[in-house]
């Protein structure tokens, strides 16, 4: 079985979670409709690392008894170390736009809305940004609307910001001091030119090594125990990537 592109993204995000230079990730929370970040978090756990996972949309065994209110209170206290965010638009300063394009509140194209991004981005020591679509309409020089800023003025309480941006073409690391992304690795099949052409914002690092494939051990974990954990929440994803369906539900 060849490596599915999603498996490569999952493996890459797992390595970012385990990055020894980043603040420690003892408690990871994953929001709604996030199968790839959820799988990466499960992979870290199944590799034997002692991390607590709070998967918000798990239908059974949900960790909360006060819904999202509890999630945000946990984050406000600093009890969540790592969260994942995306955006309809993401710019070179790691600003996120989940609200819409054109005039406020998204008269050209309305996205669903900010969800908790304007809070979570400030409250967790690190955020991994994930957006599979890598195109000039998503990765823009400047977002039309800032739902959550990547950087804050001095004095504004903030525990962290983006660690990295993972797309379907590459991984960018984020330098909060410079306020710029740097190309960290490009996925197989991509060139420095193909990434440059698909990216609307300026970034550092003309070229970078190819994103490493998941190891045999990681692939075995993904296709077995990680998929087992994911089946109930993400049946379509498991069917698409691992050709597995929930026998109980079938």
């Amino acid at each position, binding site marked *: 079985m060849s490596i599915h592109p999603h498996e490569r993204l999952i493996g890459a995000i797992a390595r970012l979670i385990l990055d020894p230079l980043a603040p420690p990730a003892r408690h990871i929370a994953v929001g709604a409709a996030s199968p790839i970040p959820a799988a990466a978090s499960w992979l870290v756990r199944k590799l034997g690392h002692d991390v607590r996972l709070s998967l918000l949309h798990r239908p059974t065994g949900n960790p909360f008894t*006060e819904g999202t209110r509890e999630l945000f209170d946990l984050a406000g206290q600093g009890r969540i170390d790592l969260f994942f965010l995306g955006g309809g638009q993401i710019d070179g300063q790691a600003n996120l736009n989940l609200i819409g394009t054109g005039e406020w509140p998204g008269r050209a194209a309305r996205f669903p809305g900010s*969800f908790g991004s304007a809070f979570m981005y400030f409250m967790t020591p690190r955020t991994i940004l994930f957006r599979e679509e890598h195109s000039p309409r998503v990765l823009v020089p400047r977002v039309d609307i800032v739902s959550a*800023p990547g950087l804050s003025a001095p004095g504004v309480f903030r525990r962290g910001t983006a660690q990295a941006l993972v797309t379907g073409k590459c991984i960018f690391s984020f330098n909060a001091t410079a306020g710029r992304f740097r190309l960290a690795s490009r996925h197989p099949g991509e060139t420095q030119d193909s990434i440059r052409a698909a990216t609307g914002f300026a970034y550092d690092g003309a070229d970078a090594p190819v994103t490493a494939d998941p190891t045999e051990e990681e692939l075995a974990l993904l296709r077995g125990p990680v998929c087992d954990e994911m089946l109930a929440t993400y049946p379509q994803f498991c069917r698409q990537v691992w050709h597995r369906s929930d026998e109980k539900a079938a």
Partner: protein
Amino acid sequence: MTPTPLDALAALVPDGALLAMPPDNSLAPAAFARALVRRRARGLRLVGVPVAGYATDLLIGAGCVASLQTSAVTLGEAGTAPRFAAAVAAGSIELIDATCPAIHTMLQAAEKGVPFMPLRGVIGSDILAHRADWKVIDNPFADGGDPILLLPALAPDIAAFHAVCADAHGNIYVGRRRELATIAHASRRVLVTVERMVEGNLLEDERLAPGVINGVYVEAVALAARGAWPIGLLDEYAMDAAHIAEYARLARTAEGFSTYLAQYVTAPLASAAE
């Protein structure tokens, strides 16, 4: 408390009411929303706590909504909420964007009876730039240079949700969805649909009591079997993903949405079944 018929429960909501509802993963009152469409509610000011889904999109499409305060509107895996998107494009509803913990915090202020409550984050977001009612102050407990957001208390006129069961005292079992208590405590009136009525007093059962909202907050209850459908309800039944997908497809156009209403909301059969 004797259960009220569903359509009579919807009749308790006056036009123009500030109406708070939970999202699709947390006891959303879908049958109640359909009853509001049948009663031709108008000018509702909805609050999605903290986000909105099927019920809100349905009410917007049926012309029941003047404004919506929420942090997002989504049909989950079925994607964009189409009537919401059309209304934003047409500018036909007033949209008041918030961010999830801000909605919770405004309700918590109302729950405590205090005029405002602080929240971290949000500073630098364009949401704040469009909220004249949100203020940033310098933390009075620090030595200066610590800006923090203050949010006004939000007390909805009415909270509505669909729960598992109620007893004759008006106590409502919401299970692990205890965030519903905050919505109920903060709102002036609470209208609830339930799967079934139960004997006895839920608050006298030590195992159930932590998942129960005290009937002191609850004005009226209506029976609505499968009243969350097509949304799921705790461990009672799962979301009907195929139906949500059908809704999302039909609601893409005004004509398709009318077809949906005729088939599932206003048809005499649907009305009788609810």
